[in-house]
């Protein structure tokens, strides 16, 4: 029955770590009393977490995110809309893997169709738009599908959008990695946060966010708070999902402009 624990946690982590707007992925956000909307593009907040030690390790690897511990269960975070994970590009970010299975015939056909319809295939916006439109059945029911399964089913949530976008980028020799974390989204009159997945693409000696799931979002501003890269792209990808789920905030409070 011990393996059942893993199965249950794995099933739930894929909802809580990697959804666009499912209620299961929502993270409570509380604005500072004096804060009004719209937000500026630099914000500060208190992040409440079960695993502050883990999130501290993560925030030390982020670009344009400053963090320090407030208590056993919380951190102060300052960030802006250009925040992303640090780290150098390596061969892994261009390779075929179990999750980003570039060698699969369905993926090859998907890439060929993209190239036929896109005269400027290397533009990030074209990649994310194509993936966003290709997945014609957005749904939260899937646990975590690998890229070829996404091509076949044309359905999924942000993890499916992310693995397919990563597959498309890598097929075009653009290094890409799938990031799990959370987003803080300012929409008309409200601020929401939820677990999310997106892609970072390497170019001009830095990583750029490419978010196919939120390509058509009405959000006024999106702040990306990365937890980690999916570092296990083999059949044991569940380990990465669970690691990321452990790093998710419980709550974001005292959110204000910097």
């Amino acid at each position: 029955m011990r393996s059942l624990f893993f199965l249950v946690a794995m099933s739930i982590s894929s909802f809580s770590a990697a959804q666009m707007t499912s209620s299961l992925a929502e993270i409570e956000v509380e604005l500072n009393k004096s804060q009004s909307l719209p937000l500026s593009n630099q914000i500060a907040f208190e992040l409440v977490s079960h695993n502050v030690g883990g999130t501290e390790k993560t925030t030390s690897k982020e670009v344009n995110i400053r963090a320090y511990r407030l208590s056993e269960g919380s951190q102060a975070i300052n960030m802006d809309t250009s925040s992303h994970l640090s780290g150098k590009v390596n061969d892994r970010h261009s390779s075929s893997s179990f999750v980003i299975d570039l060698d699969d015939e369905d993926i090859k056909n998907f890439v060929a169709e993209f190239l036929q319809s896109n005269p400027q295939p290397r533009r990030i916006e074209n990649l994310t738009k194509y993936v966003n439109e290709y997945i014609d059945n957005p749904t939260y029911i899937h646990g975590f599908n690998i890229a070829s399964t996404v091509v076949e089913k044309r359905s999924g949530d942000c993890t499916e959008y992310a693995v397919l976008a990563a597959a498309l980028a890598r097929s075009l020799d653009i290094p890409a990695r799938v990031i799990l974390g959370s987003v803080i989204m300012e929409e008309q009159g409200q601020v929401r946060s939820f677990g999310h997945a997106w892609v970072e693409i390497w170019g001009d000696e830095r990583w750029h966010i490419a978010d196919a799931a939120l390509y058509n979002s009405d959000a006024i501003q999106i702040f990306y708070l990365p937890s980690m890269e999916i570092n296990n792209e083999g059949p044991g990808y569940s380990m990465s999902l669970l690691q990321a789920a452990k790093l998710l905030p419980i709550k974001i409070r005292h959110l204000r402009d910097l």
Partner: protein
Amino acid sequence: MKSLNLFFSTIILISTCNQVSAADLVNLEDFPGWFQDAMVREIKVRKKSKLKLKKFNINEKVKGKFKLIGSSDGYWSYHVNIGTKTPIECYVFTKYDGAANSLHSIVQSDLASIAERNKKTLTSKFNYAVGTGIIGNTPYLAMDTLYSLGEGESKVSSFLKGLSAETNESLQICTHDEIGYRNAFFTVFKSFIKAFIKNEESSEYFESVFQMTLNGMPIGYGREKYSVDEDGDIAIKTESSMLVPVDATSFSRSDAVSSSWSRKDGSLINSAKYTVENGALSSSYTIQMQGGKWQVEGELQGKPIKTELAHTEPLISEYGSYLKTKDLIKSESMSSEFYMWVAEADPTSTIEVKLSKVSGKSEKDLIFNMGPLIMSLETQSSGVLKQGSIEQGSVTIDIVSRYVKGEPVLK
């Protein structure tokens, strides 16, 4: 059916768990008065009938007037009259995906049939409730759906209740397309399931059933059964079924089955397992020792998996993990470490499991570390879990024991 002018689009998933085993996902008070009244109506199921099913040695009196309306190889279908406008429909299958996937499929198929029968299009459907519970030693799943057919003035709405359980190497599902009568529906289902349980052959010396909740909302169950063969090896069968309402209209469905053999010392002999997710085989694996190496074969999302594990030492079985837990509880040691093959984590490698006592607490309060998974457990002295909890961000998963027969570790 009656027209229902609801602000469907504003229905929010709220878990209002007023009982442990079921959660209404919408607030009844948001509905018009006539619907609220209809939802709480009930009927006493007075009539009984004889249910005969030779394949399962069933010849029992059950609640409701059962009438066989169709059968074929491994499939039986009944209409059950309880005095409501629409009869309850009950099914028995010997070939099926699992309690979660099959219940969902039957509900979708029923909705399509209802639309066809009424010559209207299914225009909306919403998750109304999800639940789990136990009848005797048998766990069950519940899912209720609120739906509308047609548009404008010809729009009609109704309520489809569904329950499923596995007994006797078969699956039983009942549905009822009528607003209200929730207790009457459950009464018939319970009686139906009891007829199967009564005639179930049982060679297991240990059985346990767990209920799983997500932030207090019941989402599924796990069940394990242990039996012993003439050589003293232990056959372990585990099943789990989950229905997770991921938004207002969809359920994620998952059924997993595992069959393993263990030696009495707790070492794994071999194992086979599969998972069905959202109506499709998601993974299937076997593991066995050959030529001094652990060989894993199977598939994950349609891709073949064939590998030799780097770990060549004995692996601990599920039975063995109970043995380790029981030994730790009895000993002065503060922790115990061992290796298991947990395909759900990574089918291509083993995972180190660490069980630790919590200082200052009872020896039965343990922390269970399995790679990135950390779970706090309260166990019985037999090693069987009483309750456990996993926290992931704002989500808490609780696993609570609902039924135990015997003890897992042989004397």
